[in-house]
């Protein structure tokens, strides 16, 4: 089995749905990072059969809501001194602002300048969000 050494200080993003790891790397711009980062793909998992893991040897800041849109199954562990100091289960955010854009060509957001694109979660199972202006539904939302 492939082995990646544990990190002393940094972040471990675990339980990423197999195949989404690289998209998450790109979203977090970790593919251009100056510090050590490891993407481990197709790791055997009891819960999901296969998963991806990202290990980051630095403490970076990111928006948990946006990460939840990419993959709500993710868990994030913050490591310091070789020990987990905080663990977060990412969830689909109930509200998102300026993350996704309304695709309804009849929506006011399609013509108005300087307008925030706001959405509310309608159905977590189908990842369906509702535009707060035109109330159009968008299913299988991802970024």
């Amino acid at each position, binding site marked *: 089995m492939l082995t990646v050494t544990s990190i002393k200080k940094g972040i471990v993003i675990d339980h990423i749905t197999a195949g989404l790891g690289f998209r998450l790397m790109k979203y977090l711009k970790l593919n251009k990072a100056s510090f050590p980062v490891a993407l481990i793909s197709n790791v055997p998992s009891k819960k999901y059969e296969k998963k991806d893991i990202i290990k980051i040897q630095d403490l970076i800041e990111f928006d948990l809501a946006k990460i939840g849109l990419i993959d709500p199954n993710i868990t994030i562990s913050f490591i310091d001194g070789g020990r987990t100091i905080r663990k977060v289960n990412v969830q689909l955010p109930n509200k998102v602002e300026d993350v996704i854009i309304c695709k309804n060509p009849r929506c*006011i957001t399609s013509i108005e300048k300087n307008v925030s694109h706001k959405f509310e979660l309608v159905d977590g199972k189908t990842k369906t969000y509702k535009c707060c202006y035109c*109330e159009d539904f968008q299913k299988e939302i991802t970024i």
Partner: protein
Amino acid sequence: MNVKKKAIKNGGKSMLMTNRDLINTLDFSIEEQESILSIAQKIILRPVDFANSLNGKIMGSLFFEPSTRTRLSFEAAMHRLGGAVIGFSEQNASSVSKGESLRDTIQTVAQYSDVIVMRHPKEGAPVFASKYSEVPIINAGDGGREHPTQTLTDILTIRSKMGKLNNLTIGLCGDLKFGRTVHSLVKNISRYPNINFIFVSPKELEIPDYIKNYLNENQIEYKEMENLEEAIQHMDVLYMTRVQKERFFNEEDYIRLKDSYILDTLKMKLAKKNMIILHPLPRVNEISYDVDSDPRAMYFKQTKYGMVVRMALLYKILHQESFKQL
């Protein structure tokens, strides 16, 4: 201008409705809606009692999209209450044609007026406008989404002509996909007891899923049919709609679907004797002119109710003493 609006509007469950927005058809509770209908009935009986009730008030009338009935009925309503009207009837007559944003237009007009009535071709425009307005916003139609004051008109007409708002089978025919008046009416009147619906439309223009989901969640019965002759005999109210050219991106689709249903005297022979026909107007071909003389045709009487119910709405929103008087 009432600068206290933001503190009060949409905040209370009480019947005090001064300074409230009306953007979606469900913004007012049944009790609040009944209080508007009650005022409307009083206006019908004794309009002189309300003739000067909005003296000194100004309504901003912002129509970014053409309208005959809605705009004129709102303006007539304001004049009949003793108020005044400013605004424009097409966006080319405003600074929007110079590229001004909706946000800036609203913030400007809100400085001149006590209430803004707006129609806009884009969906959600009144929601957006309400965030930047210091005065109440009344939605006079936004794209294919909502038209709450047409619904108040429809409901006042049904109440006045049928004598009730419960135990009714309401048929809706034509463009049920883009017809904003259809969506608003279904959501609103389904709050009354024992209302069920028959939707008659071609497949391409059927009622949207979100409306069906709303009805399913609230356990309200409905049927979808394609044949008006089969459906009409079961209806207490028939709500006809126009296939709207302006909602199509493809003219070929419009031409193919525009004459899907035409209500004529032969079909009316199949309907109940006391059924009423409503239509938000304008009509194109969907109701034959022969039907106009049928006593069940209510679509022109409906326009008068439209003005009356808008008087009642403006009175409730702008008249500071309206709550005390009632």
